[in-house]
């Protein structure tokens, strides 16, 4: 040892200390727990300072956030349905981006709340914070009544993408359909990992939160900026192809009482709005078949779904179980059990993982680790199967809708996909008339002469 050659009292004490510590470690003692190896001195003329810790910041922001959310939702619903104002939605987006995004730094967010709700339902010991419950429920309730008002200008994620959209490129229909499956996978995985208490992936892999905080790991900032650059040309890529909460909002919005309509009046199918939606959420008229043909089509549809639904549910349920078991090491207890097992079998990679160091240091109990991991594995498997089956159902219904599209008479916003951005409104000549812009109207249908 180098310090041996130094003949100084400090070096000697150093050697002594190292030897002492080595002894302590060899004896398997707990080095951590504040053993007073060196008795604190008794000063005569010096006051020993107290431990000072910074006072916690006030936590009253939570209810203000809920109030802001409710106000934002009301404003968005009113702007998209009654006043039909794109400018209003843009202003609302800017405010929401500034407050929920940059001021609150993207934290408390409806997208992430899905995970808390999943964990809350799965784990009776976990009390979901009331503000988080409000952030989960309010946008969904609003979607059931007025469509996806939350997406239009309250969600900071939607707002940041919507505001940078300069030159929308149309995503080919087939690609759009395939990519729209991804949010479902994201949702199912997120619920699986949250409900088992492993990981909150919506938060961990959130692309924009790094931008809101102006900080974060490099990969997060790179994906955030990359996705933002993509949003300049592809409308709302996160909302359409990743957002797990958007899936739920879309589902709720299908049953909405009122939703934005392209025209404030009646559609005359002038086709002027046809390319006005940058998000692929505008449906062209699909005439309904009549009589015998319609009944036959309905029968074919039922047969297809009756075959597809159980098949897909079984297939994806089985797959979900596999994914569940494979995800076990993402839970701290599952990871520890896997590492202990690897060490016992001697297949552990060279530097011993900190998890094992901590496990040994804090008093190893092999039995309880494996017991915990075993119970966890069952939960992962069961939940994986159910979520997989639900995903299968979604796939089957999606296929059903591709083969048998819903009929519609007019150009209409898609009940699930429309994010109430109000862009299409200004493409409609009747909307322009409503706004007092002098245009000559199409004569089709003969109702507006």
């Amino acid at each position, binding site marked *: 040892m180098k310090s041996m050659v130094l003949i100084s009292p400090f070096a000697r*004490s150093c050697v002594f200390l190292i030897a002492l510590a080595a002894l302590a470690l060899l004896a398997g003692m707990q080095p951590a727990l*504040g053993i007073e190896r*060196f008795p604190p001195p008794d000063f005569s003329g010096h006051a020993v300072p107290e431990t000072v810790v910074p006072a916690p910041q006030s936590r009253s922001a939570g209810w203000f956030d809920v109030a802001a959310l409710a106000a934002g939702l009301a404003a968005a619903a009113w702007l998209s349905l009654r006043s039909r104002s794109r400018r209003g939605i843009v202003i609302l987006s800017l405010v929401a981006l500034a407050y929920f995004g940059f001021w609150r730094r993207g934290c408390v967010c409806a997208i992430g709340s899905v995970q808390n709700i999943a964990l*809350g339902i799965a784990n009776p010991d976990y*009390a979901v914070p009331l503000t988080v419950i409000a952030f989960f429920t309010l946008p969904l309730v609003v979607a059931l009544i007025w469509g996806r008002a939350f997406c239009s200008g309250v969600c900071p994620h939607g707002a940041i993408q919507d505001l940078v959209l300069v030159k929308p490129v149309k995503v080919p229909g087939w690609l759009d359909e395939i990519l729209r499956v991804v949010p479902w996978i994201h949702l199912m995985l997120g619920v699986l990992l949250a409900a088992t208490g492993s990981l909150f992936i919506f938060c961990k892999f959130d692309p924009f939160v790094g931008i809101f*905080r102006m900080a974060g790991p490099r990969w997060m900032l790179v994906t955030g900026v990359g996705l933002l650059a993509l949003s300049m040309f592809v409308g709302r890529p996160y909302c359409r192809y990743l957002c797990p909460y958007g899936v739920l909002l879309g589902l709720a919005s299908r*049953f909405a009482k009122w939703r934005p309509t392209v025209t404030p009046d009646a559609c005359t199918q*002038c086709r002027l709005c046809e390319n006005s939606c940058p998000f692929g959420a505008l449906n062209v008229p699909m005439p309904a078949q*009549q009589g015998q043909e319609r009944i036959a089509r309905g029968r074919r549809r039922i047969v297809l779904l009756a075959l597809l639904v159980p098949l897909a549910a079984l297939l994806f349920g089985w797959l979900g179980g596999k994914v569940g078991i494979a995800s076990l090491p993402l839970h701290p207890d599952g990871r520890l059990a896997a590492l202990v097992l690897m060490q016992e079998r001697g297949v552990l990679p060279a530097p011993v993982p900190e998890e094992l160091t901590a496990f040994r240091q804090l008093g190893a109990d092999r039995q309880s680790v494996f017991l915990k991991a075993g119970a966890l594995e069952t939960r992962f498997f069961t939940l994986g199967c159910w979520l997989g089956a639900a995903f299968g159902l979604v796939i089957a219904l999606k296929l059903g809708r591709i083969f048998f599209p819903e009929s519609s008479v007019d150009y209409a916003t898609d009940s699930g996909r429309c994010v109430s951005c109000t862009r299409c409104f200004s493409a409609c000549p009747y909307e322009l008339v409503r706004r007092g812009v002098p245009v000559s109207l*199409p004569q089709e249908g003969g109702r507006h002469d």
Partner: protein
Amino acid sequence: MTDPSANRERRHPAEHSAVNEPHAPGRFPSGSPDSGLSLTRRELLKSGTRGLGLLGFGAATGFLAGRDRKADTLWQINPDRCIQCGRCATACVLEVSAVKCTHSHGMCGYCKLCTGYFEPEPINLDEGAENQLCPTGAIKREFIEDPYYEYSIINELCIGCGKCVKGCNMFGNGSLYLQINHDRCVNCNICAISLECPAQAFVQVPVGQPYLLRGKGTAGK
């Protein structure tokens, strides 16, 4: 804006025939009674689902909100479980971690050779940067009386790497330990560091007692 009427001619004939009928004089498709019936049925299903959905949300909210909840909690590190792996410095969502070192002076041995302050083999036992363990020089060392020195953490400089804590715990009294500083912590839903912590040392503590302090002479503010 182009004249909308100019676009009328662009429609294809198939669409024309299919679409004209429903737009005949009446307000809504007057076609077959079948289509009228299906509209009602669809509407009924839709509003039924909507009602069920609203009820479901109400029930779920009640179920989750009515759960026995303790007071609100904040995240904190249990210093007795911490193994000073260093992940606190990097895993926090904040650019500079909310985790910082805390010093319980009442437990400190005031060692001249502090293994939390000095490199394992210091060139000199003085305040030279090359002798210090702390990468940011966040520990102040002051002579009190022979052979005692007082060490204090400069909070603004500390990055929560836990190097000093490791040194202190290995050879000293363990008076240096990591704590989440609640003036900076944003109290995420699930603390990002807690998910990375190999020792599962992160716990949720009541808002009224936000620190898990060690030893004598400690008082949380």
